[in-house]
């Protein structure tokens, strides 16, 4: 499924003294199969944007609403996820949500059921078009728990609240991907985890990307993570999209990114520092390529 947004705007508390424009005429396309990164500060509009993707925030549809807010209706707003037209209020949003999984920040805080099994099954039961059989549910939950790296038989009867932090997060992710969504959106999936936990989550995302979820979108502050994993990156700032580029090209704009107050990957920082010594190192900003290019530059060759 392809995500296509054109001229998308959104204002919180429109018409009140607290009104704030979160998205200003954003156009962005995410192709099927991408591992897409979204970066930007808190309040840059990135969360507002991703919440549109499974209709947690709606594109205002009725003209009346616009007149009330004394605004012209954006006749040209387009928001499509696959065949779902999100500007049409007759769209089956429930079906959309089963296809677009959304993992919020600190998803472990949304766990609620008595057992891990029930919590993971929650989404599956909600989205099933007809009442699923016990067997179907069990299979789905087993698959979901297995792919996030947990032992189904070991954890199914446990209370999700008795698990460790990293395990809780994986259960929460299992609860989202249990419907095998084609698009998976994650807001800061590794926030608050220690380095090892982070690594595990990134491995899990690649596992999902190569199996269930054709498209993965991550919102992240960790530029090393972005440079290492993403096919393309969108930079949000002040409700607008400043860049949409592959990391390889994006981080050649390191100075601009830093001036926006954003971070850049370590490799880009080193490249920037090297410029002072008259060395223009070309690499795609992954650690692997950085090492390769640096060693090549020094004529050391590369050990394959």
């Amino acid at each position, binding site marked *: 499924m392809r995500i296509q947004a054109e001229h998308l705007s959104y204002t919180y508390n429109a018409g009140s003294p607290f009104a704030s424009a979160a998205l200003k005429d954003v156009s962005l396309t995410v192709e099927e199969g991408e591992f897409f990164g979204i970066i930007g500060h808190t309040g840059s509009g990135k969360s507002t944007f991703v919440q549109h993707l499974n209709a947690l925030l709606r594109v205002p549809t009725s003209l009346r609403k616009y007149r009330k807010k004394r605004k012209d209706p954006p006749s040209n707003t387009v928001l499509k996820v696959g065949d779902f037209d999100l500007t049409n209020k007759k769209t089956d949003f429930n079906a959309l949500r089963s296809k677009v*999984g*959304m993992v919020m920040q600190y998803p472990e805080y949304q766990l*609620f059921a008595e057992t891990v099994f029930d919590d993971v099954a929650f989404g599956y039961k909600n989205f099933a078009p007809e009442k699923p059989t016990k067997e179907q549910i069990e299979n789905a939950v087993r698959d979901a728990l297995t792919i996030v790296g947990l032992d189904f038989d070991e954890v199914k009867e446990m209370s999700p609240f008795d698990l460790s932090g990293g395990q809780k997060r994986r259960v929460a992710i299992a609860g989202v991907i249990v419907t095998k969504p084609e698009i998976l959106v994650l807001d800061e999936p590794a926030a608050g985890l220690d380095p090892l936990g982070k690594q595990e989550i990134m491995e899990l995302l690649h596992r999902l990307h190569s199996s269930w979820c054709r498209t993965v979108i991550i919102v992240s502050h960790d530029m090393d993570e972005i440079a290492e994993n993403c096919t393309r990156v969108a930079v949000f700032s002040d409700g607008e999209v400043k860049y949409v580029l592959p990391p390889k090209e994006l981080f050649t704009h390191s100075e601009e990114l830093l001036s926006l107050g954003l971070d850049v990957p370590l490799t880009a920082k080193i490249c920037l520092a090297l410029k002072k010594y008259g060395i223009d190192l070309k690499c795609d900003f992954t650690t692997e390529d950085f090492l390769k290019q640096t060693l090549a530059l020094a004529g050391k060759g590369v050990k394959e």
Partner: protein
Amino acid sequence: MKDVAFGQYYPTKSFVHNLDPRLKIVFLIAYIVAIFLAANFVGLACCLVVLMLAIGLSRVPVIRVFKAIKGILFLIIFTTLLNLLFYNGETVYAEWWIFTITKEGILFSAFLVVRLILLITCSSLLTYTTTPVALTDGIESLLYPLTWIKFPVRELAQIMSIALRYIPILIDETERIMNAQKARGANFETGGLMSRVKAVIPVLIPLLLSSFRRAEELGDAMEARCYTGGKKRTKYKKLRFTWRDLLAFLLIAALIAAVVLAKVYLGATV
């Protein structure tokens, strides 16, 4: 979002904003007394004039203040209809089945509507012009005499102040959890009563757990900052009276006098 949802404080600088919160509370009570003392439309008109003056001085848009009525519109319509149709008056205009519309009924309903509207708007003016924090300070200060009978006023104020700090956070959190469960197919909008009650559980439990977690962490943080309960604490903020407070006091006193005079010389409408 959270700012609108709670407190409705309208941030600006004005005469009314700058009044001492304690006095504002006292004035509100005095104003409400005036509304109830007013026995005829002249008295109510005086109240309205004072209210409009206060709104003008507060720099809060008039429409915003009166929007507060929306919340109790149903109540107003309901009581008005009830009085209009059932009031036992003498001059009967119309009669149908068990309903009678009388001159007195119309007057009384109209009187009641004005009273209710004044009541709501003046209260909302207080919350529009006073930050929740100042309000808490004011209440604490007004209740201070109760410490004589060992009533834990300071602890109560502490609880209120913490509640004010955390209510917006919890509203935000509720929204976040609801979104998370919606994304997992939870349905809060349709369905019968039972299914709606059931739909709340996936929101309520995480919310409760997170509140407990917050409470625990906050407790630790407070203790680490040497909190041991209300004893032996000092207080940084002190409220001070200014010329504005005196002016407002005179205005309210004049209002009560006017209302009482109107009652004595013009008699009661109802």
